[in-house]
């Protein structure tokens, strides 16, 4: 006797879990628009060298085209006396390249993060003007440019830190959860010891031994940034490894790594994904705080924390603190909204009617 097929054909197959999650995410308007806004800001930030640079994009000088943002030219190329690189804000150079049929296209904000504007009318930090839209900092650098570059550096740093931290966290949690037993026991003790090391003091010590750089910071913060996550992954793996489908896979002769990555990991991804935006915002905040304390990136690197500390030093220069504050809070808020949306999206109990 052959049993008959029990499901009607033609019934539209329900979407894959990933697609349903995306649909739920889209239904969460605030998170969805935050994601878009963040993506746009990030793309703008990545275009910073074109949007905000002290060198013109294109110069046409005596019938020849020059591209100062990709190549540096000495001032002599434009009829100046100096062999050094041309300063395109120098009135002399500017006049040479903009008169007599020559022309130059400047970026919308004609300042880079480290170019000093020597031609402001006020003492530095100078208030916002037509030239420096958000004013200058205490060394005469354009605040808008530094914010733009600082935003990109912060986000890239945070992304790198999150990717590394998540990777290590997943790996550590997966190994502990899957193998369990003694391995788990010792690894947990190791995490307890490791986690009780004073992170900030280590940073201060290392900052005095090595030359501070963004890479050093990345390594140091990565060493400590994975522990929170590994606990969640471990718990999910511990739960998952006793499920019947894992036993069935073992009975099938599937190898341990394949079981971990094909069967257990997809089910352990919910806490990982949910924490992702919060981890990114945490990493941005960590970098900003360290910069604020002067333990972070070297002064030449554009950074939000350094701008904030300038704002503290020059409390009357409101454009420093207010603009940085707005950028920082805006970024963190967007990330938290995205995280909120993600959490709703990954909550499988929610159904979205389409």
């Amino acid at each position, binding site marked *: *006797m*052959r*049993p*008959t*097929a*029990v*499901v009607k*054909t033609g019934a539209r*197959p*329900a979407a*894959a*879990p990933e697609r349903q999650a995306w649909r739920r995410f889209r239904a969460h308007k605030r998170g969805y628009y935050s994601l878009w806004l963040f993506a746009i800001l990030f793309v703008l930030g990545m275009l910073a060298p074109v949007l905000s640079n002290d060198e013109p994009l294109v110069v046409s000088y005596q019938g020849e085209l020059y591209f100062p943002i990709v190549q540096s030219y000495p001032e002599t190329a434009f009829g100046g006396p100096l062999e050094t690189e041309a300063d395109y804000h120098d009135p002399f150079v500017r006049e040479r390249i903009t008169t007599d049929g020559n022309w130059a296209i400047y970026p919308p904000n004609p300042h880079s993060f480290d170019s000093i504007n020597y031609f402001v009318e006020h003492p530095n930090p100078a208030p916002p003007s037509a030239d420096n839209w958000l004013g200058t900092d205490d060394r005469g650098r354009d605040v808008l440019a530094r914010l733009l570059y600082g935003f990109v550096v912060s986000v890239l740093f945070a992304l790198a830190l999150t990717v590394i931290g998540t990777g290590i966290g997943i790996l550590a949690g997966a190994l502990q959860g899957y193998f369990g037993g003694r391995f788990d026991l010792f690894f947990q003790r190791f995490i307890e010891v490791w986690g009780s090391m004073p992170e900030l003091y280590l940073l201060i010590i290392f900052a005095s031994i090595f030359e501070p750089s963004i890479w050093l910071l990345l390594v140091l913060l990565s060493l400590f940034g994975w522990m929170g996550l590994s606990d969640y992954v471990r718990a999910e793996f511990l739960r998952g490894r006793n*499920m*019947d*489908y894992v*036993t*069935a*896979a*073992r*009975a*099938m*002769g*599937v*190898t341990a790594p*394949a079981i971990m990555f*094909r*069967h257990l990991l*997809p*089910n352990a991804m919910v806490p990982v994904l949910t924490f992702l935006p919060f981890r990114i915002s945490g990493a941005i905040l960590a970098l900003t705080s360290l910069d604020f304390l002067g333990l972070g990136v070297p002064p030449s690197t554009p950074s939000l924390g350094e701008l904030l500390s300038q704002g503290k030093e020059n409390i009357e220069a409101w454009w420093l603190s207010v603009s940085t504050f707005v950028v920082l809070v805006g970024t963190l808020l967007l990330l938290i909204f995205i995280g909120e949306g993600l959490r709703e999206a990954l909550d499988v109990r929610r159904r979205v*009617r389409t």
Partner: protein
Amino acid sequence: MSDPLLQVRDLRVRFGHGEGGSQVVHGVDFAVGRGEKLALVGESGSGKSVTALSVMRLHDPGKVEYPSGEIRFDGRELLGLPESLMRGLRGREIGMIFQEPMTSLNPVQPVGRQIAETLVLHEGMGKTAARRRAVELLELTGIPEPGRRVDAFPHMLSGGQRQRAMIALALACRPKLLIADEPTTALDVTIEAQILDLLDSLQAEFGMSILMITHDLNLVRRFADRVCVMQAGELVEQGEVAGLFRRPGHPYTRQLLASTPERMITDDRPPAGEPLLEGRALNCHFPVRRGGLVRRRVGEVRAVDDVDLAVAPGETLGIVGESGSGKTTLGMCLLRLQACRGEIRLAGESLTGLRGRALRRQRRYLQVVFQDPFSSLSPRMTVESIVGEGLRVHHPEMDREQRRASIAEMLAEVGLEPAMMERYPHEFSGGQRQRIAIARAVILRPRLVLLDEPTSALDVTVQKQVLALLHDLQQRHGLSYLFISHDLRVVRAVSHRVLVMKDGRVVESGTTEELFTAPEHPYTRRLLEAAAVEDPA
């Protein structure tokens, strides 16, 4: 009956408001007389529990609405009753017991205090009086040493004792109506029989009515006076148990009654030949440790204790036993999924020393199907990757198209449509999921499949289909089965030979008919009695 205790008229229940909602109970009428035992029987999704919960008004009012209907209890209309009055009714006049006593008792409070709390709340008793009464109630439900057990936490009691404590809790205020929602489903057969006897005697003593919700027709036959059969939210038939079982009127009732598994093995002689899988002197002991840091070993649990067995090619060996008897552990040991001592031979070759790659190569011949079709399929994999996983491991030479072709063939063989390959497990019903699990096991052309309670989580009609499928596959591919079950009727239907396990030991074994008609060991006799397996003759 002129004045029934509970009268339900044209009850409709709807989940969710507006367009997104769905009606799950479509106009149900029934009545429970005073002192009557009524059974509400149906398969999962038939709306029987929803109906019962409506009587208690336990549905979340934000999610459930009642488009029509009335529920009159002892002269009062319950559907319109304010929540404050309803609270006074629950527990005092209507008691309820649930399927899983572990989750319905509060794990952080001693059972005695939970019973006493109800008494203090509803009867206004003093604390000492309530405690005394709690001990009496526990004694009444047959819990040994009630004076000591009154201070026990739920996890310290066995499953049967927990259900007894739950009954004591429900009966604390002498309710007029007791609603029992699958009260014995989570229990072993011998315990089930005891609990039913207990309910019977308490019902007579208290003179209360019982509304029993169950899927088990055997239980209805033994326990209830009248029965209501529900299907897909409708009450299709009701009547006296004896009469209805003898002459079912509705086709669905007939189908339900016909779903009792019938013997499928026509050839009584077990297939002869060299044993395919042999286990000799198998032992699996779990140490019991005490203490904090050092964790001294204070004893051991003998989950499998010196078991020998052999399965011939094409044979089904049934393993029966109650929970904790070690039958699942034995199965896991035989598949080398659980460490154990003793020797295991597959077709004459020893599996005992194999490790790593050599063991993985042998694994394709020994496959497994589990009880719970919801936890046995990874929720984030498509049917294609679930069923095809074994092929990827053992036939790496196949490309995707070949794999898909053989998956499609396999799905058709287990009665599913090949087009379902793209879907995810959550879109399937329990029976379909079990078919997917079977497809996953059989696609590797194994020689033996371990079936660990493969039909226990399924409705009876589906159970029958799945059993037929398994039998069909066995015939076609010459599979051997190790069939683990606590359900004696199912084991009898499919097995050539049967092992009876108790506390890790095999107490009796023999061909199915011999064992069922002339059991030798007293434990086997007790099991058969409790399960009330009637002779098909």
